[in-house]
């Protein structure tokens, strides 16, 4: 098997995640989908690192994880606050950006 398939998998997962972001209203699930996309990227990175035979790809993936962690922390905090203020975790309820 050609390891490229890992990349195809990554692409697939990424797309699924993206679709999830687009169609789900629950902020938490949206978040999970984002995580899914990040993970897909990580997979791609790891595969690349294998492809090039050096570890930089893995490093990047590692940083991605760190950032993802930070992002999750802040994001979830935001969700909680939002929920407190408007008793709902639906992203559609927060459309104050509307003109």
């Amino acid at each position: 098997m050609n390891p490229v398939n890992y990349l195809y998998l990554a692409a697939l997962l990424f797309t699924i995640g993206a679709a999830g972001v687009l169609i789900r209203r629950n902020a938490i699930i949206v978040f999970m989908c984002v995580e899914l996309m990040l993970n897909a990227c990580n997979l791609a990175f790891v595969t690349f690192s294998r492809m090039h035979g050096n570890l930089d790809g893995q490093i990047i993936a590692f940083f991605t994880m760190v950032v993802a962690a930070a992002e999750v922390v802040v994001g979830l905090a935001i969700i909680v606050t939002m929920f407190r203020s408007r008793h709902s975790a639906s992203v559609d309820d927060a459309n104050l950006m509307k003109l």
Partner: protein
Amino acid sequence: MENLIGLLVAVPLLGAAILLTGGRRLDRIGHWLGTILAAVSFGIGAVLFFDMLGKSGEDRAMYSHLFSWVPVGGFQADIGFQLDQLSMTFVLLISGVGTLIHIYSIGYMEHDERRRRFFGYLNLFVAAMLLLVIADNYFLLYVGWEGVGLASYLLIGFWQNKPSAATAAKKAFLVNRVGDVGLSIAIMLMFTTFGTFSFQPVLAHAGDASEGKLTAIGLMLLLAACGKSAQVPLQSWLGDAMEGPTPVSALIHAATMVTAGVYLITRSGAIFNGAPDAQVAVVTVGAVTLLFGAIVGCAKDDIKKALAGSTMSQIGYMIMAAGLGPIGYVFAIMHLVTHGFFKAGLFLGAGSVMHGMNDEVDMRKYGGLRTYMPVTFITFGLGYLAIIGFPGLSGFFSKDKIIEAAFAKGGTEGWILGGAALLGAAITAFYMTRVMLMTFFGEKRWEADAEGHEPHPHESPKSMTIPMIVLAFGSVFAGGLFSLNSSFLKWLEPVTGHEEGHSPLSATTVTAGTMVVLVIGVALAWLMYGRRAVPAVAPRGSLLTRAARRDLLQDDFNHVVLVRGGEHLTRSLVYLDHSLVDGAVNGTAAGVGGLSGRMRKLQNGYVRSYAVSMLGGTAVLIAATLLMRAV
């Protein structure tokens, strides 16, 4: 000596500057100052004149170059003066008559609180007119040309609170401006043809230029002359110009400014000599105008308007003479000078009459005034005799010569012109007699006006009568003096050149003919106005009379075609500018606004739809890169 030439202009100009900026503190001495300065420039003129007499004919011309005015590439305009016999004649006429009229105005404008300003304007006019005649190039002449236009604008509209006066002033300036366009185009043509527009080189090389160019220049100069000298078709302003104070009418609209056209044509003789077609145009204009003016003069009841018509027709004579070429130039100028005397005298007389009649101008409300104002009567009478060409008076000599010259033109053209001139002489005799009779003879026809105070005619003060007397002398003797062993001819010949025309008729025949038509005219007038009593209200009159009263409908034509048409044009243009030019822009603006209004609907504030657009965008980008790599 040459340095004095500049002073001719500078002195009255200084006067104008002082009087117009001086403010009220000059009110008491203003008129004296103005008069003295005018007299001074006459004095300078006299000094130069005698200096000139001292020299021999050819080198009498003096030149003085002050400074370079507008030097741009080949276009070299200088402030320089040329004083030859022709200019000198005008200088004396202008400053002389000018001074007299200053004196006259002291009395005439006595009761006007803006008298200082009036004298300022008069000085301004004298300065501009002198500049016009002593300039040594057409460009500087143009300055004087428009300068006199401005002065006449200010003076005609001097009583600005009268709307009629303001309108008349505006009309005069505008019509003159049309003429000025002619002059400026003529200058441009000279520049493109000769590379210069100074008199000497242009006139010296006029022969070398193609006839077409000369004709074009000539016609443009004629247009200018028509504007300034109130010749058909630009004559309409002169009648209205009588709204101005009478001295103004005498100085500007009889003696000096209106003759500028004649000066221009005579000065440019060399050009016209090379362009026969242009000359034909000139004589035609002259002939037409002299009849036109004469006819109008017959119908007017307003004494000043009648005289205005006469002015028009007399200048018609001059223009015609100038158009005849070398055989006519001298006589044109000669008639111009004599006309300056008697016409100024007549106007001053008219002014004096009005002065005595509470500014009544309608001759039908005069009558029998000879007993009340004898001096005015006599001077006016002498002027009258002069203008109709009574033998021995100045008008006789000058006009007779012109008629001879007209016949001398030869061929059918000669006959036509001569006939026109004779007819004009007859009509002149008629309408002048009419004026004379209606004003000074018959029984009194005036009654109390609306306020109920009856005019009690009285002789005018000395300051007014003296100038009239002086001018009367001029109008009696000038002609004789000039034609005494044809001194005037000798005087001008070096400048204008002269050749004897060979007339089909002998001089005596012409003179006899003139006498005959003169008698006919006078007799006719006497039959109509002397024997019968003059009705106080004008009778309806024949069709021609009514047309003539309306300046032969020329004004109506202007009004309908130019004024109305222009108004419509501007109004529609204003509308188009707003709706079309501006509307196009505003339309685009509106379109953009509407579009963005639709676009903003996309900003619905839902994170997810933003996310969709982001993803779509990314997809597009990827697609783009792929395509790029594909090709």
